């Protein structure tokens, strides 16, 4: 199963990058979500796949049963998902604001910091 999930991770990265490069704010946001998902999946798969053995300690035991899933990547991903969500919300608000301030959703037309006359020499 591992190679298939590795392929899926690559597919999510490729789709995310392609969407982010489109130059349209909305598609850029789609791409951002895809890329976050891909990053989470990457960490998860790299930490090793274990089926049906969550990292829990049975009642009455002091250590988990032999062969439970790797808890570390799960903890990392939990953090990553939440931070990715925060980033997404902020990006969404920023995109919305930028659209209303500049009247366009095309990223290449947003040239407030680097006006055209500066570079068109």
């Amino acid at each position, binding site marked *: *199963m*591992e190679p*298939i999930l*590795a*392929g899926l991770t690559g*597919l*999510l*990265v490729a*789709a995310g*990058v392609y*969407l982010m*490069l489109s*130059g349209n*704010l*909305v*598609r850029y946001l*789609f791409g951002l*979500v*895809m890329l976050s*998902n891909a990053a989470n*999946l990457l960490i*998860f798969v*790299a930490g*090793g796949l274990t*089926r*049906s053995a*969550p*990292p*829990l*300690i*049975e009642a009455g035991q*002091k*250590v988990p049963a032999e062969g*439970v*899933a*790797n*808890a*570390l990547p*799960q*903890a990392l*991903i*939990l953090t990553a*998902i*939440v*931070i990715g*969500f925060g980033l*997404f*919300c902020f990006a*969404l608000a920023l*995109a*919305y*604001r930028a659209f209303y301030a*500049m009247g366009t*959703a095309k*990223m*290449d037309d947003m*040239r407030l910091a*680097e006006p*055209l006359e500066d*570079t068109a020499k």
Partner: protein
Amino acid sequence: MTSTAAPATPEQAGIWRVVPALVLAIAAGWFATFLPLIAQGEYAEFVVPWIPSLNIELAFRLDALSLTFALLITGIGAICFLYASTYFRSDPRLKRLLSLLTLFAISMLGLVLADDAITLFVFWEGTTITSFLLVGYDHHKKSARDSALQALLVTGLGGLALLAGLILMGQVAGTYRISEWVQMGGIFRDSGLYLGMLTLVLLGCFTKSAQFPFHFWLPGAMAAPTPVSAYLHSATMVKAGVYLIARLSPALGGTEVWTWTLTLVGATTMIVASIWALKQTDLKLMLAYTTVMALGALVMFLGGDYYYATTGAVTFIIVHALYKATLFLSVGMLDKMAGTREVEALGGLRRAMPLTWGIILLAAASMAGFLPFFGFIGKELKYEGALGVASEPLLVASAAVLANALMVAAAGMVALKPFLGAQRSPKPAPSDPPMTMWIGPALLAVMGLTFGLFPDLIGPTLILPMAEVVYGGPVPVEVKLWAGVNTALKLSIATFLLGFVFYWMLSRIRQSLDKEVPRVADAAEGYEILLQGMKDLAAWTARTIQPGKMTSYLRYTFLLMGVLVWGAILIGTGGIDLELGDVPIFHSAIVAIIAVSTFAIVVTGSRLVAITALGGVGAGLAVIFVLYSAIDVALTQLLVEILVVVFIAVALLKLPRAGTGRLRIGDASISVMLGLGVTFGLMAVMSTPLDRTIPDYFEAVSYSEAFGRNIVNVILVDFRALDTLGEIAVVVIAAVAAVAALRGGGQEVEK
């Protein structure tokens, strides 16, 4: 002596003006006390650790070669400083000039005294920087600024090459002490890096000492005030390259490459420069070209690998410093008192400026190499050396004769043209300058005669010990004025005859030079083209990489990421060794749903489809997390995904349609490259054994120390609680910023 001293303002009349000159004169006297020690072939040393971890020391060593240069730097320095304090009497920037000159003198002294290669380099760069500031002294003139920059770029780039060369030598030798290098020449010559270090070191020396094809910066540097040119660009700094060649010749010299490179570069420089010298009508520029010529001669003879050639070269270093500094300072006197340096505008000044004429005559006689001047001894030694060099005696001797003949003509032009004939000068009533200006040049000129008449004063005490240091062995040579009628004397006579012919035909030669070789060998043009090319390249790079388009910035970032990922995969040692394992149908179906949804988001033009598919991807991932034992992750993923979808749906009502557009091949390639890179990189990572140290630790202590049965939760709220706190802070900040962006205070940005 008629003093033309204008009433100086009180501020400028201060005694401080002569203090730097006095200090240097005292230093010269102090160095002179080492003469008896040096005459015995001994040396003095001073070492303190500087950067011990890099094996770099602040090491200084005074031997015959260093002492000669130290005496020239302090002695001629004192004279130039004194001269400058009068020359710039009414210039409010005199303090700056004297400070810079003093800084330069210190750098130069450090350079010639340093025994540690890195110390030497630091002082070497010190001379480059102070020279830049001094050449650009008239910084309100564009030409002066350009010349200063040119000198800085040429010598600075050479300096970088030199540093690389010195480090190579240090690596090969295992030490940075130059005095140890010169005793282990074989190690360098047998090293596989010999050609590399030789090229780099010589590049540094050639740029500094204005060798062809880097000679062009020196005439440009004549934008500097005359005392500066006399000090830096004739007597001291430009000889730094020659000094280093001489210093390192026992370590690097003695090979065919060394001999031929120095001979050919030196000879070319010499010939090209002497022809250019004759073309000049500005006396200072003419002297600048004869300086280039002299530097070429020094390089050529140092490459001779013959003790007579070495003795000739080291003698000529002193001869040249004495007469060239004198001539520069004298031309400055002409410029100041008669109003111009243009030889065509001057004439008949012998009555008005008799002292100046006398000084120039003495110096020019030494330059032309007349008997019984010091220059004669230097020239005879050079000819004697030319006849025995390791490369090609005929070539070296004829180049030397030709260049010396042109030098005789140049000497005639400086010494005779402005003083004979009918009196004319742009400034009415020219006269000799005040004593503080002429005393120094007069002293140097008289020394040129004294050392000629009494060569024993300097021969066995300084010249021969110095030749031994440079040659790296005994030098059975006698420095004397009259060596009898030999081949060298015959060559001298031929030189004089040729020189007189050149002098009489000077105006005709100049005319034909103007016509025949208008722009030959003008390396300055190459420099201009190179400089412009660099600027264009920089502008092109900035335009391409920073076009002001956000998608371009993203594109370059992702492209670089892809290159880095692929680089790591291709360079990485481990291969991919992964089995497909068992693939349950249900799992494959989930993966297929995610893949199809992903594809749908990319191709669809419909917002509704896109949002649905985005939710599909998120939910699919949550299922995968559940299947592979990550229940908490799956829960969070599901909640977050729902929020994301809701937010996007709300926002999309306000945002315009996305549209799909055509397939962008370039972007698609970048995406596919990066995606494949992640896939292969991930597979390569998974092919290596998993390090379970940390998970094992958490599993063991989760209950015993933190009393939690859900290990993931324990990690988050206990072992890595600070991370979680940071995570919450990030979310709060994002929320606050989002609210601020959405409210926005109502101010619209102007379009």
